[in-house]
């Protein structure tokens, strides 16, 4: 690994800021028989970039191509001026020469080696003293120094995660790829690991491409987000731009809008900054923020289940513009929240706390009112 030699001097000096540029196209036949094409172009700056998308969208293929485990049909991949792949000039560096660290979902820790051996695996080019120094430093950062002589099957899931990160980062890679690394962990462990990763990233500014399904992680980590769907980039920008104000229905679903309705505009009130939309197939109207759109067009409006208030008696004197009359169709407890389906013509999914269900004595069949603020309705194209 030639690039390790470059870092010999400073132990914690940050590597020069470098951008990862990717432009690639790859087609293949899926197991199900259907044809899939990944066609993307992106530039990842140092820092956390979240790659967000449904399963099958092509995220893993993209990461594999960047790491060199798969070869695109055409395109170019480079880190700053170092070309990793270029179909035109026929450059295709093997994974071991790319200086790309890739953390797989399965972690792939070597089961027959200790934590220390695992972490030092990538440092073969250094002498023992330097190896110990480097691994010591990264183990400290991730707080696993005490686990040196243990085997992967002797430590907890969270600790394994840290070891995998340490092993990947000790080699001072120029790009870090993470494929849903924290899915199997509990919230507390997740949060701690993310903190450590963030701290490490502040010290070593390299592009990090982080794949996740979890919105929490996007906001916790993301400096920038990219949404991938069916092999194409659907949206990119800040996490807020991409998720809080999703521009498309698919992104909205991904972003966790439990309620999405097809509507047509029935009236607009520019002086109030709102417009009225009728939910298709019903007589229900919603007042939503004004958007410049052709009145004849059909829109989609999305509302988060957590943004809807439930009242057991008709509320008076509220600021909210939407107060809907309905009946509870079903109540279901999931973890620490209650999911209520309320029929007001169309069905709404509402999330409540256990306490709320208790105090309101909610039961299926009960008559309730839904309260939705105008700004909780998001107009999607």
């Amino acid at each position, binding site marked *: *690994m030639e690039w390790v030699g470059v870092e010999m001097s400073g132990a914690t000096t940050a590597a020069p800021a470098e951008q990862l540029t990717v432009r690639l196209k790859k087609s293949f036949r899926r197991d199900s028989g259907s044809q899939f094409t990944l066609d993307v172009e992106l530039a990842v700056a140092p820092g956390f970039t979240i790659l967000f998308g449904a399963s099958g969208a092509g995220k893993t293929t993209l990461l594999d191509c960047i*790491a060199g485990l798969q070869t695109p049909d055409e395109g170019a991949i480079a880190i700053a001026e170092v070309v990793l792949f270029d179909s035109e000039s026929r450059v295709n560096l093997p994974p071991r020469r790319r200086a790309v*660290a890739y953390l*797989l979902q399965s972690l792939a820790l070597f*089961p027959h080696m200790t934590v220390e051996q695992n972490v030092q695996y990538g440092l073969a080019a250094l002498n023992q003293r330097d190896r110990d120094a480097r691994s010591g430093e990264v183990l400290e950062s991730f707080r696993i120094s005490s686990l040196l002589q243990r*085997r992967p*099957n002797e430590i907890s899931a969270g600790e394994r995660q840290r070891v995998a990160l340490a*092993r990947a980062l000790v080699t001072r890679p120029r790009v870090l790829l993470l494929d849903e690394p924290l899915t199997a962990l509990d919230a507390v462990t997740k949060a701690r690991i993310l903190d450590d990763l963030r701290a490490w990233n502040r010290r070593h500014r390299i592009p990090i491409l982080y794949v996740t399904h979890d919105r929490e992680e996007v906001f916790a980590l993301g400096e920038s987000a990219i949404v991938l769907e069916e092999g194409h980039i659907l949206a990119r920008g800040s996490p807020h731009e991409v998720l809080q104000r999703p521009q498309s229905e698919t992104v909205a679903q991904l972003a966790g809008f439990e309620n999405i309705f097809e509507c047509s505009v029935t009236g607009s009130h520019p002086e109030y900054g709102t417009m009225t939309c009728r939910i298709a197939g019903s007589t229900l109207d919603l007042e939503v923020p004004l958007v410049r759109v052709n009145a004849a067009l059909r829109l989609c409006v999305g509302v988060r289940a957590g943004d809807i208030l439930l009242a057991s008696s008709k509320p008076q004197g509220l600021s909210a513009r939407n107060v809907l009359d309905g009946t509870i169709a079903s109540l279901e407890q999931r973890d620490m929240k209650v999911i209520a389906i309320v029929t007001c013509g169309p069905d709404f999914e509402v999330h409540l706390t256990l306490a709320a269900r208790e105090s309101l004595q909610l039961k299926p069949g009960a008559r309730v009112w839904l309260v939705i603020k105008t700004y909780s309705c998001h107009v999607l194209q």
Partner: protein
Amino acid sequence: MIVQALTLTLRLAIMVSAILLVIGVPLAYWLAFSRRRWKFLVEAVVSLPIVLPPTVLGFYVLVAVGPLSPVGRWYQALTGHTLAFTFEGLVVGSVLYSLPFAVQPIATSFAAVDQKLLDASALLGASGWRTFWRIVLPLGLPGVLTGLVLSFAHTLGEFGVVLMIGGNIPGATQTVSILIYDQVQALDYATANRTALILLLLCFTLLAILYGLRRRGVWNGWEWR
């Protein structure tokens, strides 16, 4: 007689297993990881000795590469004698005959190593050799041991090939299996019984030790969890 035949048989088995270890591991590695389109042909050739009777092998050593053929003449010029009737001839015949028993378990074991571990190794900068030495071999060790044991056991019981080309020379090509056969042919059932029993006990002890080691976990390598 028995002692001589036994030591000869053990020497043959050890030599054959050692040779098969040396050629078997690289061959198995190639079979496990190569992506050449004609790999299936090599696999077929390697598996041939499982289906072919030892008579075919004997025929080739005796006639097709015997002293009257160009290959045989070259060999004779090189070494001064023929392959048949010699210990070396038995080694060659047994190596060919036990080849698949060594190669197949090793190849299967190598191929079973999680591809993700190999990817991880490559991503951490390891060369193909380093990945083999530090990941594939340690994790594939159970298969290597199995291959070693199988070739040893298979050679211990070798009969057909030895019968075809051995010439039954005590101390050089008279293995225990041939000795027993001879004793039966000579109607000396008592001695044959004794000899057979000794071989049986030897094989049983060997296998018992090996399976005992397996219980201890030495066999199973490292659990991937």
